[in-house]
């Protein structure tokens, strides 16, 4: 009991693909839930077959899929076939939660509306995470992570000062959506514990993006102004930016928030004459003159590696850190110490690296790598649902288990 993960005994059916939905599944698996992803040869999760794959010619178990879906189980089931629908309903009956980031019409289109699901299991929890929500005039609009950033209001405020808006590298709207989806699942689980009632929680991914950049909205509300594109600049702090270091494309981020820290920075840099310039004497002046200030600081950082700058500045109590690339990040001593990245041996793809949920807890479940397509068919159809071997063979032949 002492070391039981929070969601031990909870069964989740996942109709998910790409990133936002699957990452929900991965985190739920970290929390100890049994997550069963329903897949079909009719339309494979694009992360199994496109984007990044190890050996593309070796089929649907080589993709980026393995990073996101670790710990999750997989069954293949064709829900367009009546027998397929019948089987999924049997699985719903013995499950607690259903998650999906498919388009709003997907589940109802198969005959799995919330009303129908409630009839099968009255206290079922359904969490839907479509791009724009399951209701409203644009509910059927299509999206990618990059377009959601744009519609959510993030892109207009993102870019270099005086330049055009740019797209983020990592497309955070997906994992933001996942986390809000998880808020929905866990809130509903808590609510059901108290009241016995299930729920349909619907989350709009674009609203998730907007929820994390309130400064952008409030500047418009309060001052009729769109927050300008600021690069690495801050509203008040200076120096506050990214400075070139020794080597190719190596940078260090430095942020100074008080005069005391400014003097500490000057000391670390050896108190060059330019530090005493009245242009940099106080925070306001430093902000006004930050372009010049940044050039001068760059003149100093250039002679050091980004690690050296970080160490010197952190020793003096100043916020500084390298702009890590993925290789540096994985090999960083702190990152290694925290056990964030985990090397796994995937049965089809071989060596894979995954990351755990962003918190350290003694209760995080130890899970296997991401599933091969339909890997858990026998477990779910035979063990959980009691379907006979003979019937399973027939279902495979008739492309129901497909």
């Amino acid at each position, binding site marked *: *009991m002492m070391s039981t993960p929070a969601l031990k005994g909870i069964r989740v059916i996942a109709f998910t693909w790409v990133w936002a939905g699957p990452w929900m599944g991965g*985190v739920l698996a970290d929390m100890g839930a049994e997550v069963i992803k329903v897949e079909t040869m009719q339309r494979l999760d694009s992360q199994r077959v496109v984007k990044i794959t190890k050996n593309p010619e070796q089929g649907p178990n*080589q993709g980026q899929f*393995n990073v996101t879906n670790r710990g999750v189980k997989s069954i293949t089931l064709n829900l367009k076939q009546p027998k397929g629908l019948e089987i999924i309903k049997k699985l719903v009956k013995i499950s607690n939660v259903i998650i999906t980031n498919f388009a709003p019409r997907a589940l109802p289109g198969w005959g799995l509306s*919330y009303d129908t699901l409630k009839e099968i299991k009255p206290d079922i929890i359904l969490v839907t995470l479509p791009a724009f929500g399951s*209701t*409203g005039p644009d509910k059927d609009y299509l999206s*990618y992570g*990059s*377009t959601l950033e*744009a*519609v959510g*209001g993030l*892109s*207009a405020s993102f870019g*270099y000062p005086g330049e*055009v808006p740019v*797209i*983020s590298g*990592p*497309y*955070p709207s997906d*994992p933001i959506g996942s986390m*809000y989806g*998880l*808020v929905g699942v*866990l*809130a509903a*689980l*808590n609510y059901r514990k*108290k009241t016995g009632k299930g*729920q349909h929680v619907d989350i*709009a991914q674009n*609203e998730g993006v907007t929820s994390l950049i*309130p400064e*952008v909205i*409030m500047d418009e*509300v*309060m001052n*009729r102004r769109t*927050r300008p594109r600021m*690069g*690495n600049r801050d*509203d008040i702090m200076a120096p506050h*930016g990214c400075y070139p270091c020794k080597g190719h*494309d190596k940078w260090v*981020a430095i942020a100074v928030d008080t005069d005391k820290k400014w003097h500490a920075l000057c000391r670390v840099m050896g108190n060059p004459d330019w530090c005493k310039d009245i242009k940099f004497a106080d925070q306001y002046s430093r902000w006004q003159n930050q372009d010049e200030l940044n050039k001068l600081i760059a003149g100093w950082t250039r002679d050091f590696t980004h690690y050296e700058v970080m160490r010197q500045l*952190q020793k003096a109590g100043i916020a*500084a*850190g390298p702009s890590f*690339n*993925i290789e540096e*990040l994985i090999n960083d*001593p702190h990152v290694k*110490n925290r056990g964030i990245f985990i090397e796994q041996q995937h049965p089809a793809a071989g060596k894979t*690296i995954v*990351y755990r949920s962003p*918190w*350290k*807890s003694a209760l995080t479940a130890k899970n296997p790598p991401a599933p091969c397509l339909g890997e858990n068919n026998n477990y779910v159809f035979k063990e959980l649902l009691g379907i006979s071997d003979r019937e399973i063979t027939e279902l495979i032949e008739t492309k129901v288990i497909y």
Partner: protein
Amino acid sequence: MFYKVLDGVKVVEFGNFISAPFCAKILADLGAEVIKIEDPRCGDSSRRAAPFLHDIPGLENSGLFQYLNMNKLGITLNPVAAIGAEIFSVLLKSADVFVENNPPKQMKQLGLTYRFVKEINPRIVMTSITPFGQTGPYKDFQSCELVSAHIGGVGYISMREGDISKEPIKLPAHLFNFQAGLSAAVATLSSIFRQSNTGLGEQLDVSEQESVIQNLNSSIARYAYGGQIMARTDAAGHAPFHILPCKDGFICAAFVEEAEWRRFVEVMGHPEWADNELFKDFASRAKYWDALKPLMVEWTMQYTEEEIYRRSQEKAVPLGAVRTAHQVLEDKQMAARQFFVDIERENTGKLTFPGVPYRFSEIQKEAPSPAPLLGQHNEDIYCGRLGYTKRDLNRLKEAGVI
């Protein structure tokens, strides 16, 4: 609150700026009672953060503070004073959750490490959010949004077409501070569920760096599978997404599947150049982007964001308008889902805020209450619950305890 989900759950929040307050906001939005503890002299540091109403700074004028702290009770308390520490213990004794984002060293000095908090209240869930976690070589390092963005590996891959002589940049505002708070809320909700099932508590060690890392899905896969170190100008990764100028702003175009490109060609009225061999598929279009871009822009500059967005989506093209804050506030889809809320508050009057991106089918949505004025609920809590008299309150105030 927005939804009465966590009725009866008591939270004590002790922190500053964004990550802990946002974590606690999510709990408060779901109906938990959140008592926010602020420094008596200056309050939460976000009170001093822009945007301010009419650009006039003031403890009660910050839009950021008011968004983060709606639905909470606010008290002032200085836990350094002996009696302050005693009051803190009393508050923790009857709490279910304790959310904080203070440096580990500071919590140790205050006698508020989990080891001690556990003795006051063994079943408490203590959510501790820090830039690098409670353990590891960087645990006492200084950080902020800028440093997190870069040391978490996102800055390095923030897209840059062509020229990398300029520094890598962070995403707008404080997206990663917020994302850490959101991740912490997910972990906390899971622990609350476990607490209700087992009566057991725990400490959740949430690291902002790790929260940033969860955005690196693609980067990890590329590295794990092929040793590729993703960089800002990684055209192959970014090729299908582009922000292009249009008549009154910008749009974000996305063509991952061939069919999407072909449909967009139809939206553009099938211009002759679209039949050019150079643009025949994904790889070619990426290779010859410099030739393709001006041709597309010639078309987009003729139409507004809204026109291009609607026409594209009508033809199932996953394009997004790069919305300004003003356009986000006017968005019909968000209006239909009643995403934005108006809150009336002393000093600043009625303002529009982002609401919550989730809807619960079986629970009535309620109106949120405004963020507390500094010390607004001192009397309610100290006198009403802890048994102090109003004269005690004055003495405590004079002594700098509250």
